[in-house]
């Protein structure tokens, strides 16, 4: 496997170390190395690397650049809310802080190129400089000239610099209208099931054998592989659930080799994880706590989602229920309506039923429901006298709400009559 990484421009033992740090990615690393060439040679002005999340793009780049000690600047486009941050980061990495400080208040691309040119004429690149941009799809949302300019940066600054863009979106969705300098496209394929098994098994716990952990990973992949192939997510799930897997072993009930019993113990637990932790309905901390009190309390998990966390005042709940009924019941079923979607009149029904005075505070709660995005406004902003709203919650949610006020909403819904 280490045979793949060979290049006359770099020391063999360094390449060996790189190969060890990049399991299952030797082919891609080799490809990148051959494109990069000798450190002092120039490379193609821009390279676009695409592939699924957690397919090793950033990892391979970082390992290569750090281990081989090549001059580089890594920028995450998520952090660069303004282009100034991007320019600063690049100038800082290549020329130090005095170059970065030369940038004016809100620098334009013109300023950046000018300062870069100044400095690279003083300190020309002895080795190819690399600028790695992660989450490059966000560059599409910045100024229209930034992406095309970055792709031809080598030409604009007249220096031995190469831009490497990393993204999970394909290049076809990046191309500007009038075209641009086309980068070299490189694909990082997804890990196969076997490769995932190999990589995940490397995280083995010191107090258990490698085969034991391997069998655990096998079971985990069996449950989750058809739904998720993201290495990061799988590692997270593996780390969270391992203690539960080892529980019967720790309690002395089974031996390491009793795979069937271990499977029976962990499988329902993993299934529940799919509905909660995987969906981020429950935080990892809550999950770990839950595992400890599993046997004693099988209460419902207090999820993270809006469903269980919204606490509405009493009248707001009724307003919401009224809104739901008004939105989903056809108008003709209630002869008291003469405006189709406006549900203000529905409130009268409840007001009459529960003898509550329709005060302004009741109606102000409508606007707070809109802020919570439980209602959406469908009328124009200029129609102040008859605003129209629509209910934006699901059936489950409204059933949960109506249960808390002892109101049987099913009896009032047209579709259920």
């Amino acid at each position, binding site marked *: 496997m280490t045979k793949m990484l060979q290049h006359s421009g770099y020391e063999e033992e360094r390449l060996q170390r790189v190969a060890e740090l990049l399991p299952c990615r030797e082919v891609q690393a080799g490809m990148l190395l051959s494109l990069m060439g000798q450190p002092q040679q120039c490379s193609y002005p821009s390279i676009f690397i695409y592939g699924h999340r957690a397919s090793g793009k950033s990892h391979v780049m970082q390992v290569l650049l750090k281990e081989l000690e090549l001059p580089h600047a890594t920028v995450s486009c998520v952090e660069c809310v303004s282009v100034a941050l991007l320019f600063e980061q690049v100038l800082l990495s290549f020329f130090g802080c005095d170059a970065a400080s030369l940038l004016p208040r809100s620098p334009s691309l013109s300023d950046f190129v000018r300062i870069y040119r100044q400095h690279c004429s003083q300190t020309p690149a002895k080795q190819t400089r690399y600028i790695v941009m992660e989450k490059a799809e966000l560059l599409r949302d910045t100024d229209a000239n930034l992406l095309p300019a970055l792709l031809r940066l080598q030409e604009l600054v007249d220096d031995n610099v190469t831009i490497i863009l990393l993204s999970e979106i394909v290049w076809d969705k990046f191309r500007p209208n*009038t075209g641009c300098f086309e980068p070299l496209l490189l694909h990082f394929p997804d890990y196969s099931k076997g490769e995932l098994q190999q990589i995940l098994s490397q995280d083995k716990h010191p107090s258990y054998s490698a085969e034991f952990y391997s069998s655990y990973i096998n079971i985990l992949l069996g449950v989750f592989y058809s739904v998720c192939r993201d290495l990061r997510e799988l590692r997270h799930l593996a780390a969270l659930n391992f203690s539960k897997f080892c529980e019967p072993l720790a309690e002395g009930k089974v031996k390491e080799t009793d795979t069937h019993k271990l499977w029976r113990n962990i499988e329902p637990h993993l299934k529940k994880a799919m509905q909660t932790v995987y*969906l981020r309905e429950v935080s990892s901390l809550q999950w770990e706590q839950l595992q400890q009190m599993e046997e004693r309390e099988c209460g419902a998990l207090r999820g993270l989602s809006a469903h269980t966390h919204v606490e509405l005042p009493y009248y707001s709940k009724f307003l919401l229920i009224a809104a739901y009924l008004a939105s989903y019941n056809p108008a003709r079923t209630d002869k008291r309506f003469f405006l189709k979607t406006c549900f203000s009149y529905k409130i009268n029904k409840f007001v009459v039923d529960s003898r509550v005075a329709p005060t302004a505070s009741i109606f102000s709660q409508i606007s707070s429901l809109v802020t919570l995005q439980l209602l959406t406004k469908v009328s124009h902003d200029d129609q102040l006298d008859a605003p129209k709203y629509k209910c934006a919650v699901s059936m489950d949610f409204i059933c949960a709400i109506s249960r808390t006020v002892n109101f049987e909403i099913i009896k009032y819904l047209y579709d259920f009559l």
Partner: protein
Amino acid sequence: MIICIIGFIDVQVQDILRERFCRQQLPDRLEGVEAQHKHLLELLKRTAVHGESNSVLIVGPRGAGKTMLLKCVLRDLLEEKEAQKNLLQVHLNGLLQTDDRIALKEITRQLHLENVVGDKVFGSFAENLAFLLEALKKGDRSSSRPVLFVLDEFDLFAHHKNQTLLYNLFDVSQSAQAPVAVVGITCRLDVLELLEKRVKSRFSHRQIHLLSNPTFPQYLERVRTQLSLPDRFPDQEFCQDWNDGTLCEDKSVQDVLQKHFNSSKDFRSLHMLLMLCLSRVSVSRPAIRPADLLEASRLCFTDSKANMLHGLSILELCLIIAMKHLNDVYEGEPFNLQMVHNEFKKFLQRKSNSMYNFEQPVIMKAFEHLQQLELIRPVDSTAAKTQREYQLMRLMLDHSQIMEALQKYPQCPTDVKQWAMSSTELKETFWM
């Protein structure tokens, strides 16, 4: 001993060819554009030597060699002593100088007149430009030195407010203020439509087109030239062997080059292909073989979306198949998650596949992942008004891409494959 020599040679080859493919090194002579070269050289000579003002646009698709043409012409121009002594150059780029204020600052800087301008404030752009050109006069002669303005990405300057820079530059080139040559480089063939009437009238309407249309044998010759090593290569024997290589005579290589020729004839895509071949040259293989070219071509023509489909989970793939069925039945009408889920449930019921019976939120997460990959896109961007499950989406893949991806998908379950192919048969029988 021999290994050392070979080891050194592959580095030398890489050095030379990388300069050519990556750094766009100027060749000694440009092929196929002799007429354009002559025309441009004449024009610029008239400005640089005889003090005549001119304007011209170099128009051609991306990668046609416009910048290279200009650079070659400049190189030849500056061989004339007088031109070299007098000509001043200002290079502007539409991508960098995004508005006229920045452009003016850049012009000042490139003419080295920052100190002369100092803190002066000008009433208008025209005033400022006139001042700069006047300042050039106070050299040794009574008349101003000739200035060459090169405007790369010329079409972007046409989007500036009032096209002030363009108006003023062309105005100067028409009046007898100073000998000025304005050369615009653009990829837009309709560039004149972008100019305002008053700007267009001051432009000389001189255009140099680089719309070369080589025949396939000419293209093959171009490949050979691009790959050949120059005479000044240190190891003459190796150079001879390399240049005499029969790579371009190989049948499979010619087929591959024909495919590239059919898709685009420009230099840039050729350089990309040759760069990929070059990267495979190493100590152990100091030559480009047909297999290298085939592999490089395969990389160039690979379908990116198909590659991404290969990495989807089974659940996500099933959702895509469900969307495909919806597209087939409803002829491309947009769908939402609920509709896709219902379609998926039909598959589950038919085959009693409890294996894929996931909860709605899990399916939602898979659906969201597809949205993040931009394989599906919302129909309108105002997505906030409706609930996520009911937002209408469109699939950004076509039928053949999905079917091809299914064939290549690793360990695709047979029932999923059958489901994908089934409804087309059903549809056909129905319409018969």
